[in-house]
């Protein structure tokens, strides 16, 4: 297990390194003046000269990428020249909002998905099972930003059940949660379908195992066997899927944050892109990719710890 963990961690670090280096390299290597790319069009000539010197823009590309990493590792993500603050401050103040949103989405998809999946596995091949199957696929198919727009229209603008703008009052937990409900549901809905199908499939597999039959033979109530014993094991594959799914959820979070005017990494990148504020784009990408790869890694390790077969399968 230790060897496996080290391998996966090394791979994850390699992926983050390669992904960010490639992006940084593309940004620098593209035709045009890199100072205007990295400082934005509003930079003065003096700023450009200092910056060119500082960043070593005349060095070879590989050297520049390594220097970029040296700065990142010392905690310097660059400077947001538009608002005159370090990029790390901008990114770190936005990140908690996005993390809350993504975990809200995971809450919806795990709770509703496991419920639906267990329910249809329990009543396999009934009409209700078929209906839940179709609903799951429909959920998977619904594009998250259309769901976000529809729920904004229905629950916030028309019915006024939930607020439509912002992330809530700082310090007021209830208002924070109220503001989280709709955007996280919009992101999570697609994953409700995935989780439901996976839980259903693995439930059916687990229910055929001999220990479940033994439990039944000992006269344990059927409901208890299904929902306590089988479900506990059947959830595992869903953990993995949700871990990998966080990448998709981050993409959906961009839409949810913009549609519901929430602060977060998505809004940050979106405004940075419209302003051509490249240091902020780079910094947010770094954090977004790092967050995604970390979550996928954790999900992978949890699975490996709980199910040793998984370690060999790779």
């Amino acid at each position: 297990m230790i060897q496996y963990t080290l391998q996966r961690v090394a791979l994850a670090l390699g992926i983050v390194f390669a992904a960010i280096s490639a992006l940084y390299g593309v940004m620098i290597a593209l035709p045009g003046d890199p100072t205007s790319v990295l400082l934005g069009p509003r930079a003065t000539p003096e700023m450009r000269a200092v910056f060119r010197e500082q960043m070593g823009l005349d060095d070879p590309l590989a050297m520049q990428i390594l220097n970029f990493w040296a700065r990142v590792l010392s905690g310097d993500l660059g400077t947001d020249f538009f608002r005159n603050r370090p990029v790390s401050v901008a990114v770190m103040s936005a990140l908690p909002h996005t993390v809350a949103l993504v975990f809200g989405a995971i809450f919806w998809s795990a709770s509703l998905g496991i419920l639906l999946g267990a329910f249809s596995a329990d009543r396999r091949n009934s009409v209700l099972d078929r209906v839940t199957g179709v609903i799951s696929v429909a959920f998977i198919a619904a594009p998250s930003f259309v769901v976000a727009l529809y729920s904004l229209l229905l629950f916030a603008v028309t019915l006024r059940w939930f607020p439509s703008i912002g992330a809530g009052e700082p310090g007021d937990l209830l208002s924070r949660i109220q503001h989280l409900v709709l955007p996280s549901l919009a992101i999570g809905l697609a994953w409700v379908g995935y989780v439901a199908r996976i839980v259903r499939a693995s439930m059916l597999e687990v229910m055929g195992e001999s220990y479940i039959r033994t439990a039944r033979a000992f006269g344990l109530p059927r409901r208890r066997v299904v929902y306590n014993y089988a479900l506990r094991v059947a959830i595992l594959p869903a953990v993995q899927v949700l871990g990998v799914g966080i990448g998709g959820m981050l993409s959906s979070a961009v839409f949810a944050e913009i549609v519901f005017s929430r602060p977060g990494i998505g809004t940050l990148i979106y405004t940075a892109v419209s302003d051509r504020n490249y240091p902020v784009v780079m910094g947010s990408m770094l954090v977004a990719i790092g967050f995604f790869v970390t979550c996928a890694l954790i999900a992978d390790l949890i699975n490996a710890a709980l199910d040793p077969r998984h370690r060999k399968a790779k």
Partner: protein
Amino acid sequence: MSRFRHTLLGRLARDPLAVMAIVIIAALVVMAVFADLIAPHDYTAMHMTDRFAAPSAEFWLGTDNLGRDTFSRLLQGGRIALTVGLTAVIISGVIGLVLGMIAGFGPRWLDNALLFFFDTLRAYPTIILALALAALMPRGLTTVIVVVVITSFAEYGRVVRTQTLSLKHAEFILAERAMGASFGRIVFHHILPNVLGPFFILAAMNLPVVITIEAGMSFLGVGVPPGTPSWGATLKDGFDHIRQTPWLILAGGLPLILVTLGFTFLGEALRDQLDPKLRSGR
């Protein structure tokens, strides 16, 4: 008739979801292809006295903030969606197919290198990468297609690689090799046809994803140029004027939902038919 029942199409015809999927897709394709004939209005014509109109006999799905007919614009949007979708899926599919087979057949180090390459590409959250790249590239359909290809060919590559690897050591391939079949014959006569099944399922499932990314990029203002009637642009207009009319959002989201539903159901049905192992799981 009895022979038809056992063809792929015949089996699909007995699956109600597949029939529904095919009807939806066919309707969308027809509407996109004959958009100019079907459209009741010119999609650029502005009816300034009828801005934000609700659906009526004159404007079937209402009008937008400039008084343009929403239905006619959505028809044109279908063309954009299908063009982008098909182009991007074909390009990324071919790249993925070639790289995946190279990874499956190549030496161990090449396989590992390509696998690492695929994993790296999959580490980019699609829309966030689209935003970052769109900042560097000119706005337009080409940029949209490039972004989509970059973010999606790795998926094909992985699937094809896995399939190739499992086939490489299959008994019928070993037998063929023992009989002295050439490398080309093994690849094109035996591996390729067997890889194509999962490949097409993935393509069918991937097409709506691509269309959604195009709409999403246009919604964020980094997709089609301003004024182009992409579905995403219509939704953006609706979002900007949500207090004036709900119809733009309602109508603009509908084709996206239908297209994703259609292709997802089709992909599901194809998978059930092409992969008997999964069928038994139901």
